[in-house]
């Protein structure tokens, strides 16, 4: 663990990296200086708080507190995914169901297969990783749904006029949105190792773990993200398309 110790002096010196982006903003007159400072202060405060909270939870080491922490992570991820939905009739529960099912199904498989132990030190970071990736996927799915319902509006109206139910009328849109949402995870899986060394693998290598063991974990993480984002995209897509119709099965404006 000696390799991963960061002294306070190193931390302060690393702040010079922030000054680089502030200097770019000032020189190019981008007007981002205030935003950069606020984001840095927020990141420091949030990370310090979460550091102490995690230390406390790891120390207590009880099942109910671990479970409660996963609920908080899932709710936050759902809230943020829902905020990315441009549809004015969006429903938060769609995001919560998609996030919860995707996260807990994947997490359960990891625990049952013995990949991780049901201890807070492993469950909480993995939950954060799954829920965070799902959040991005669900947000992408919502955006793609919104754009497709706009672009293919006439086709949906034609199908409704022919007596189709809303699912059949929306099927090409749902499929397109799920595909768009899953694409970044699939693309990223194609380049793992060749282009980027993901955070989990880098962290283990930093901590002095044999790269072969780190790779094993990364393979599992790749499988885990494919499962979680797939579930998140499918569930959110099939729940959210309904919000584009009213109770008379008419396409909303």
């Amino acid at each position, binding site marked *: 663990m000696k390799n991963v110790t960061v002294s306070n002096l190193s931390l302060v010196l690393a702040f010079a990296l922030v000054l680089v982006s502030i200097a770019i903003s000032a020189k190019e007159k981008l007007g981002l200086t205030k935003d950069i400072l606020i984001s840095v202060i927020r990141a420091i405060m949030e990370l310090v708080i979460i550091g102490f909270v995690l230390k406390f939870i790891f120390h207590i080491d009880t099942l109910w507190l671990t479970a409660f922490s996963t609920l908080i992570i899932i709710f936050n991820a759902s809230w943020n995914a829902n905020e990315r939905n441009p549809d004015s009739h969006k429903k938060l529960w769609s995001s919560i169901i998609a996030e919860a099912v995707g996260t807990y199904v994947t997490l359960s498989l990891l625990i049952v297969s013995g990949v991780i132990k049901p201890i807070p030190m492993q469950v909480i970071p993995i939950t954060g990783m799954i829920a965070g990736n799902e959040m991005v996927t669900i947000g992408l799915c919502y955006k793609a749904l919104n754009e497709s319902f706009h672009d293919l509006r006439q086709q949906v109206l034609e199908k409704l*006029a022919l*007596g189709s*139910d809303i699912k059949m009328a929306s099927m090409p849109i749902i499929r397109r949105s799920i595909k768009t949402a899953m694409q970044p995870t699939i693309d990223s899986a194609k380049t793992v190792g060749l282009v980027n060394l993901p955070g989990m693998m880098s962290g283990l290598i930093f901590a002095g773990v044999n790269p072969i063991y780190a790779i094993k974990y990364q393979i599992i993480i790749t499988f885990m993200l494919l499962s979680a984002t797939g579930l998140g995209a499918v569930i959110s897509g099939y729940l959210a398309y309904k919000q584009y119709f009213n109770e008379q*099965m*008419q396409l909303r404006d």
Partner: protein
Amino acid sequence: MTIIELKNVDYQMGKRTILNNLSFGIKNGDFLTLIGPSGAGKSTILKLIANLISPSSGTIFYHGSDIQKLDPIKYRRQVMYCFQQPVLFGKTVKDNLPFPYQIRNKEVDLDRLDSLLKIVDSPAEFLNKEINSLSGGEKQRVALIRSIVFLPKVLLLDEVTTGLDGKSKEIVHRLIESVHRQGTTIVQVTHDQSEIQVAKNVLEIKSRGLVNEKCNG
């Protein structure tokens, strides 16, 4: 017997009133032609009858029942709306004509499709034609056949012959006539003078839905 009745129907789009207190009835088996200036609300009336939009107030009855209380899917399969500029699905004609069977979970009846294609002078090979290669008239024929594969009780035609050449118009008229002869009530919106002149029942929609009934026959 009245098949469709509009009673005190208002329709507002934002703050704009499109239809104000509109009331009229359509008799079963009738061929009604709606005419009037652009923006008078003729297409809106058809969409309201098709239950693709709902009135802001007032009621539309189908066989005496409020359409808002009927199953929208079952209702739209009986009261079919055809768009002025139809959008076809997929890549070929074949991707479109089986759609009414797919949504009803039924086997495609090729004999039925063949008989409909014969009415519009199209050979069976027409099914394999790519959508991108179809003329406006051919697209409209596909859209109309798609709507009448299962004979509807009411067919709502929203300027379906606008922009078509003489021959295409004639073919579309032939198809509509054949549907009407089989007992389907037809309500069409048109600006075409030749269609208005031969129409028996004409309803003139003036500004914001005031009606003036004419009878040529």
